[in-house]
């Protein structure tokens, strides 16, 4: 549950003060712990042993201001409402750092991103190949400050990525993608199969890398929200809210109660429509097409409500730094309840239909199992994490918007198969309806936007939101004249893609689509 003061990090510190030499708490949301480069690995391992989850790892270029590249590891603990950011410098003269990926697999991709984008070598990384920039890129470090965003690179040639060969009698590699038959985003899946069972899967993402993190550095901070909303279209509200929370924390303002409530409603509506569509789509992937037709219909009803509430089906342009862009009248507040009152029984009858289909259950149960240990090692979060026994939810553990004041249950299952990922979604839809109702019922008239003062330079802040996929983090450092010096975006897909590799092993290749759909990760959010 939600204890009033959860201070697990403080306890750890009081036990071993010498391990945390420089400790600074900001905004009541984050703790920055500065350590010398050599001590980072030891402390990180210790934090993981204490039960912390590594949420993200990233770096920034401070060579001009501080003469180094600080790198960050973001830790989270179920019993502390703050994030702990471990910060260690990397010297530009010797652009390398000791990799933690061998001991903490959760930072595997993140450290390789640092390597690709900043040119800092992750020494001792078990798989130091490129991840964010494909193999045919020239040797450039796009997130360094001395790399102008206008740079036009010559056309690339050669292999994007060389896959590891798989050997053995009757073992075959099946390349799938990056162009797929359906209307989905690009990603390459390289299966090694022996007949039908999958032995191993190699993933290749970042086909739609857009340099969004670099782009944030060019924009006035208050315009960044538009960019944030387009990081991953189906998570527009969540990414927008996370970005605004970071800006608001850096500016040191509190947003009005009414804005908190309205944001909560929009965030939950986003969760509801995505989950409903996913439940239908998962049924569709096992050939139960009727469920998909109803799932799409239910999604459409919420999208139409979004349009009535915000003028945008994906609720874009509604959340802004300081609160929300415009107010709702009484008739709009009534519409929320009207739509939900019709929607809820509709959803229940869809679930009855799916649950009464034995052939569907047979396909979902024990398919694509991700064990709790695998999920913990890989730092899996969100729906996929909760289906595998990882009890984390930013709404409950690090309350934001109006979540501190509503009661809701976080569903957690142990089995970690496709069926449990469906059940987590079903249960969350029901909880979300409850949240929307209780927040909408308590919504009082009042100001809906706080004025945003000019952003002070050189402030760090973190915005954390539980998007419908899982934990979304936006970390910013403000720069001069209202711009950002760095904006790090962490989409939950980034944590969860490597888990897909584990979940499909031993399954038959014909079941891959439904396993993939049960994770439903964002390519765009991963690639940024």
């Amino acid at each position, binding site marked *: 549950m939600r204890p009033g003061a959860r201070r697990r990090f403080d306890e750890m510190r009081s036990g071993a003060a010498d391990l945390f030499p420089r400790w600074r708490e900001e905004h009541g949301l984050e703790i920055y712990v500065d350590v010398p480069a050599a001590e980072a690995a030891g402390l990180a391992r210790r934090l993981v042993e204490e039960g912390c989850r590594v949420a993200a790892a990233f770096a920034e270029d401070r060579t001009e201001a501080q003469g180094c590249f600080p790198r960050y590891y973001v830790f989270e603990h179920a019993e502390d409402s703050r994030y702990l950011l471990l910060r260690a410098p990397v010297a530009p003269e010797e652009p390398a750092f000791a990799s933690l990926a061998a001991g903490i697999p959760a930072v595997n991709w993140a450290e390789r991103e640092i390597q690709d984008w900043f040119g800092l070598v992750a020494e001792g990384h078990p798989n130091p190949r490129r991840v964010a920039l494909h193999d045919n890129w020239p040797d450039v470090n796009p997130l360094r400050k001395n790399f102008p965003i206008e740079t036009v690179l010559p056309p690339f040639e050669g292999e994007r990525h060389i896959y590891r060969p798989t050997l053995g009698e009757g073992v075959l590699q099946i390349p799938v993608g990056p162009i797929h*038959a359906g209307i989905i985003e690009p990603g390459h899946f390289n299966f090694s199969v022996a007949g039908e069972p999958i032995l191993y899967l190699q993933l290749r993402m970042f086909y739609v890398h857009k340099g969004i993190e670099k782009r944030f550095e060019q924009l006035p901070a208050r315009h960044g929200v538009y960019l944030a909303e387009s990081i991953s279209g189906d998570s527009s509200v969540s990414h927008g809210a996370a970005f605004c929370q970071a800006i608001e924390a850096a500016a040191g303002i509190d947003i009005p109660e009414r804005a908190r409530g309205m944001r909560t409603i929009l965030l939950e509506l986003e969760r509801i429509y995505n989950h409903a569509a996913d439940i239908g789509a998962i049924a569709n992937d*096992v*050939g139960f*097409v009727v469920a998909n037709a*109803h799932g799409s219909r239910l999604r459409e009803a919420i999208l139409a409500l979004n349009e009535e509430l915000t003028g945008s089906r994906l609720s874009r342009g509604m959340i802004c730094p300081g609160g929300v862009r415009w107010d709702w009248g009484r008739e709009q507040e009534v519409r929320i309840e009207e739509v939900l009152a019709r929607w809820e029984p509709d959803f229940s009858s869809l679930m009855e239909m799916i649950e009464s289909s034995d052939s*569907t259950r047979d396909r979902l149960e024990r398919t694509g199992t991700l064990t709790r240990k695998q999920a913990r090692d890989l730092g899996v979060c969100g729906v996929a994490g909760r289906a595998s026994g990882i009890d984390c939810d930013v709404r409950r553990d690090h309350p934001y918007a109006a979540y501190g004041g509503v009661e809701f249950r976080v569903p957690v299952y142990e089995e970690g198969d496709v069926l449990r990922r469906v059940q987590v979604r079903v249960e969350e839809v029901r909880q979300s309806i409850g949240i929307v109702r209780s927040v909408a019922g308590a919504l009082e008239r009042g100001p809906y936007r706080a004025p945003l003062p000019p952003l002070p330079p050189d402030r760090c802040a973190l915005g954390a939101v539980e998007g419908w996929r899982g934990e979304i983090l936006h970390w910013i450092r403000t720069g001069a004249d209202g711009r950002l010096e760095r904006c790090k975006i962490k989409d939950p897909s980034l944590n969860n893609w490597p888990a897909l590799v584990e979940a499909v092993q031993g399954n*038959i290749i*014909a*079941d891959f689509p439904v396993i993939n759909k049960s994770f439903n990760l964002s390519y765009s959010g991963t690639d940024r």
Partner: protein
Amino acid sequence: MGHAIGVVGQFGLMLLLAPLVSGFIRQLKARLQTRRGPGLLQPYRNLSKLLRKGMVIPDTASWIFGATPHVLFGTTVLAGLLVPMVSAEAPLSMFGGVLAVVYLLALGRFFLALGGLDSGSPFGGLGSSREMTLSALAEPALMLAVFTVAIAAGSTNLSAMVHAALGQSWRFLAPSQLLAFAALFIVLIAETGRIPVDNPATHLELTMIHEAMILEYSGPYLAWIEWSAAIKQLVLMTLLVNVFFPYGLAAGWTPAGALVSLGWFAAKLLLLSVAVAIVETTNAKLRLFRVPELLSVALVLSALALMSAFLF
């Protein structure tokens, strides 16, 4: 002369009716799924579009890739002409009976599997291997089920079987006939690539069976293959409705008789299409490794049917 009319008439009927049956099932499914559907005539529009388009042929393909659509179309149409549709006298019945039907269809499938492999795409190989695995079970089930009726008629010639059945209108209630019908229905679902065996509407390459084999085909070749698939479906459905319920079938080839039996034929096909659409809508696809189990059920049913044909 009657023969010539029969051959031409049934040939034309098959070509024209087969896409309509596919379109009807598709439209019915769409309605059952609360969708509007593309209309009954969509398969015709697809065929005419594909026939007018250009083709992309993989660099790795040999002559087999190009021969496959023609062999498939030819064998399927020949098989169709051996089956009585609107007259108990199948146009080419003197050339062969049910064994010829089964093996003509098998020859087509063999080439289709080769065509899938020949394309060089990993999906083609995937689809071909799956198709051959399933057909190893579907084929004997089909044969045993038809043999049940053949034993009662004392002939494997389909026209002779239908003539024998026409005399005994309640014969389909015999246990052997019911079991054989059930077995053949499962074979129909499997052979036409429908849910729960295969999903004809999916875009997911990794789950496909029939569609995976033909992924690399385009333009007129694809049109021939799709047309053949529709005809094969019509032939199998005809086998089901006319061998087990020959009621309404004209004995020879007369214009009036053909018209009446055409009406009956359409009505029987309609009922069977509804059954297929309902099965497809109410079920999820089976896990690939469970499909052989379903086909084994068909095999056991038809074996039981054959045994009970001797017992009762």
